[in-house]
């Protein structure tokens, strides 16, 4: 494989960025986009997949403009999308704290935080739109935290030097999502949005190369349904569940993205995955997910491990001089407050060296004892009450008495479908929003920036650019009986039938979760916090073996056969195993692509750490000459996927190396 790939993507991966100075570029660009009359908008339908921050805000805003909208979600209610679980907050360059913040500073922090692997123009637009997002959410009635005088409160987050994070206790994502969902439901009530819950996307429909619809499986009836539209929006979230255990909701999946990838939407930087350092570690083999403990605990907690390897003593029995506060030792300046990627990597190193504690030696202590001695138990309880309660509920241990045990866990995926400045993928008419696209976070996302990006995409960017796309586009009539729809539906039907059909000799059915767990183990080991060329190469072969084994031995029972109300046909009725199997098939493909991407990127940057590319002090070594680009992978029906690059230029900020020592 050519390490840097072919640079032949000049036209395929044209970012269509704005011209002129970055400041005000989006406004200028927007002024020149074509418009559509209100009467004409009523004749056009946009189909949105996903009801999280990006999907709900886009659907509502498009319907407000007059479009007809269909919204597909696998949940029973749009309110349940995983944005609901975001804890910390949302950034905006309001400078309410009067501490010198500005759009330019937020822009710089985002580009640097992403380790110079995102586009300047996109990051600047995001910083500019951040303030309007807060205005919009407040107008909707989002109950942000307030000061006594009634103004909005801010806090600092993730090592930035300014206070620009708006929050609603530890439930900011929930409150922002309910704001967007309320706007969405208002349009449902007005008859402009068709809400299509309990449906999984199983195929994308292209007509003459343009995205025109989707095929869904209804999760109760099991029927396949085809929905057509004039443009399709994917806002289906990230893919951290490829690791099986992650902080994502257990049904979050990559299938919408993967189906689009196989129809020509290129996948950018799939190996950029964020592993969050402070999560409750895994214990029992049947543990179904990992729970995040907000990063804010590192403000008062000291991370340590026994200095002696395989020290079996209880933490209280280990005297001070036999404890290794390894982050404070390795990073005297930042100490426990180093960025997420460093904290994760160092914790893992110590555990691999045999110092780890808890089941399998896979966790580190986060100790509040010193803060309790300094500020008192009551103060610490007041500061972190909810979190400590949650920890105790899950682990059965009181963190005010025993140090918390934490370990890094997959949390967010910066990679996603490649999009241009208009958020359009390499499939014309297919727009990708929020975590599902690869855009502004580069190789590492900053805390409190995911909510900002999802809402910028949904409220402000996509409604403008989708109009621009539809304005210039002939719209041939496409209904569910169009040959392209029938073909997509037949493909989905065949895939489902193959999973249900008994293959080979009679076998003991093996639960799909078992296969997924195995894939997850492999991926976290080879393509998690730390990556190494030979291991990645081996893992590609191992994933392929596992995929083949699943194709031969895996399968699910057809429960629909006994479901009286369902029409005859394969996979009818409720079948959670079939849902899992369809998702797992797509994870196999994604895992292969992530490994290839990690192998090809012969540098360390942001969350992507290659052991071969580090300084003598063990710090990440970026290679801007060979890898100062976005890698976009194109699916090919035969042979390996093709890696193409979109070069990155930095005119406003000079790339620098991070140093937290």
């Amino acid at each position: 494989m050519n390490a840097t790939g072919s640079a032949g993507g000049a036209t395929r991966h044209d970012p269509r960025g704005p011209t002129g100075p970055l400041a005000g570029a989006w406004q200028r660009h927007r002024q020149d986009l074509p418009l559509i009359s209100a009467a004409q908008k009523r004749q056009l339908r946009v189909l949105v997949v996903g009801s999280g921050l990006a999907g709900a805000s886009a659907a509502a805003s498009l319907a407000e403009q007059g479009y007809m909208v269909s919204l597909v979600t696998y949940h029973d209610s749009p309110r349940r999308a995983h944005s609901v679980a975001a804890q910390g907050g949302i950034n905006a360059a309001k400078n309410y704290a009067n501490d010198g913040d500005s759009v330019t500073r937020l822009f710089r922090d985002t580009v640097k935080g992403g380790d110079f692997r995102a586009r300047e123009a996109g990051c600047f637009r995001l910083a500019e739109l951040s303030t309007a997002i807060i205005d919009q959410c407040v107008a909707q009635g989002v109950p942000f935290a307030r000061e006594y005088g009634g103004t909005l409160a801010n806090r600092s987050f993730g090592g930035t030097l300014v206070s620009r994070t708006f929050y609603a206790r530890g439930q900011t994502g929930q409150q922002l999502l309910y704001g967007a969902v309320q706007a969405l439901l208002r349009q449902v009530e007005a008859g402009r949005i068709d809400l299509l819950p309990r449906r999984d996307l199983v195929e994308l429909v292209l007509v003459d190369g343009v995205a025109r619809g989707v095929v869904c499986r209804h999760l109760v009836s099991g029927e396949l349904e085809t929905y057509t539209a004039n443009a399709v929006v994917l806002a289906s979230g990230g893919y951290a569940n490829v690791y099986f255990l992650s902080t994502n909701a257990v049904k979050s999946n990559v299938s919408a993205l993967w189906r689009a990838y196989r129809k020509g939407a290129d996948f950018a930087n799939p190996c950029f995955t964020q592993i969050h350092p402070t999560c409750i570690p895994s214990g029992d083999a049947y543990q179904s997910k990992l729970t995040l403990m907000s990063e804010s605990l590192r403000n008062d907690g000291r991370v340590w491990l026994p200095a002696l390897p395989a020290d079996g003593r209880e933490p209280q029995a280990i005297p001070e001089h036999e404890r290794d506060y390894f982050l404070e030792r390795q990073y005297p300046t930042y100490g426990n407050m180093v960025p997420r990627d460093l904290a994760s990597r160092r914790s893992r190193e110590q555990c691999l060296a045999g110092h780890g504690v808890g089941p399998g030696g896979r966790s580190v202590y986060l100790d509040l004892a010193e803060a309790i001695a300094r500020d008192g138990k009551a103060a610490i309880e007041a500061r972190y009450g909810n979190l400590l309660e949650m920890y105790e509920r899950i682990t059965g241990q009181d963190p005010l008495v025993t140090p918390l045990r934490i370990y890094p866990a997959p949390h967010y995926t910066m990679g996603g479908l490649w999009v241009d400045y208009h958020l359009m993928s390499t499939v014309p008419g297919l727009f990708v929003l929020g975590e599902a696209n690869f855009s502004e976070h580069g190789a590492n996302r900053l805390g409190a920036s995911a909510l900002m990006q999802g809402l910028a995409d949904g409220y402000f960017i996509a409604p403008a650019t989708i109009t621009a796309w539809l304005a210039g586009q002939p719209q041939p009539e496409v209904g569910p009986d169009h040959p392209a729809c029938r073909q997509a539906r037949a493909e989905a039907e065949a895939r489902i039938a193959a999973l249900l059909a008994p293959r080979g000799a009679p076998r003991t059915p093996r639960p799909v979760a078992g296969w997924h767990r195995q894939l997850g183990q492999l991926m976290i080991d080879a393509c998690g916090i730390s990556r190494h060329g030979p291991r990645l190469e081996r893992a590609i072969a191992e994933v392929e073996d596992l995929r083949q084994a699943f194709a031969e031995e895996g399968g699910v029972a057809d429960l629909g056969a006994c479901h009286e109300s369902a029409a005859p046909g394969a996979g009818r009725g409720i079948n959670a195993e079939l849902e899992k199997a369809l998702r797992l098939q797509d994870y196999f493909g994604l895992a292969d692509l992530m490994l290839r991407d990690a192998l090809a990127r012969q540098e360390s940057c942001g969350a992507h750490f290659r052991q071969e590319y580090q300084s003598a002090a063990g710090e990440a070594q970026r290679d801007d000459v060979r890898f100062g680009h976005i890698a976009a992978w194109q699916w090919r029906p035969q042979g390996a996927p093709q890696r193409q690059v979109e070069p990155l230029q930095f005119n406003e900020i000079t790339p620098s190396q991070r140093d937290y020592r």
Partner: protein
Amino acid sequence: MSPTLSLTLRIWRQQQPGAPGRFETHQLEQVSADLSLLEALDWLNERLIAAGERPVTFEHDCREGICGSCGFLVNGQAHGPQAATSVCQLYLRRFRDGEVLVLEPWRARAFPLLQDLSVDRSALDRVWAAGGYCSVNTGQAPEANALLVGREQAASAFDTATCIGCGACVASCRNASASLFVAAKLAHLGQLPQGQSERQRRALAMTERMAAEGFGSCSNQLECEAVCPKQISADWISWMNRELRR
């Protein structure tokens, strides 16, 4: 090694609406006390699948108590015996070795059963859609700090806005009333200046829709408050009743 325990699960099994249902008994032998009750159901389902039987259907997703997907009765209590906890956050160490747990779906006319422990709660969304919002289009918002909201007032609005829409309040009410759900939404927006212009219309529209969807009237038993995973106070139902007479 974490402690283990054995439990007997009596689970409601029903193939589809209208079909006869029955309790099915399953033994969990020596499972880790560190599993959540939903993970114990995963454990059971993997064994049912391996034996060629139909797994138990139940709703779930985030498994950290915020999405509101999960919910069923555990020994007659919505979300089980632990206060302020949705069933995904209920861990087996809460139970005694050898205990019998009876698991049943939410029972309410407005929540038709789908299968086993899963019911259709879309009626709650239709009630919400009747008026549970501020009618403001994208792009119309004034500068955020132009509107001052007192710290206590904002905190109180937040408390009512934390409702996760799980339906436990309905399931625990002998009248299957959605009063706490509706009151929480009305109080969230009704306490904020942004929600004032539509305040009365919203209260009427949402309570009318609640009745139309088949939810009953408040039973005044306050079971809803006792089972609410977000501990929303039933005082807000009184607040809602005053709201309707404004």
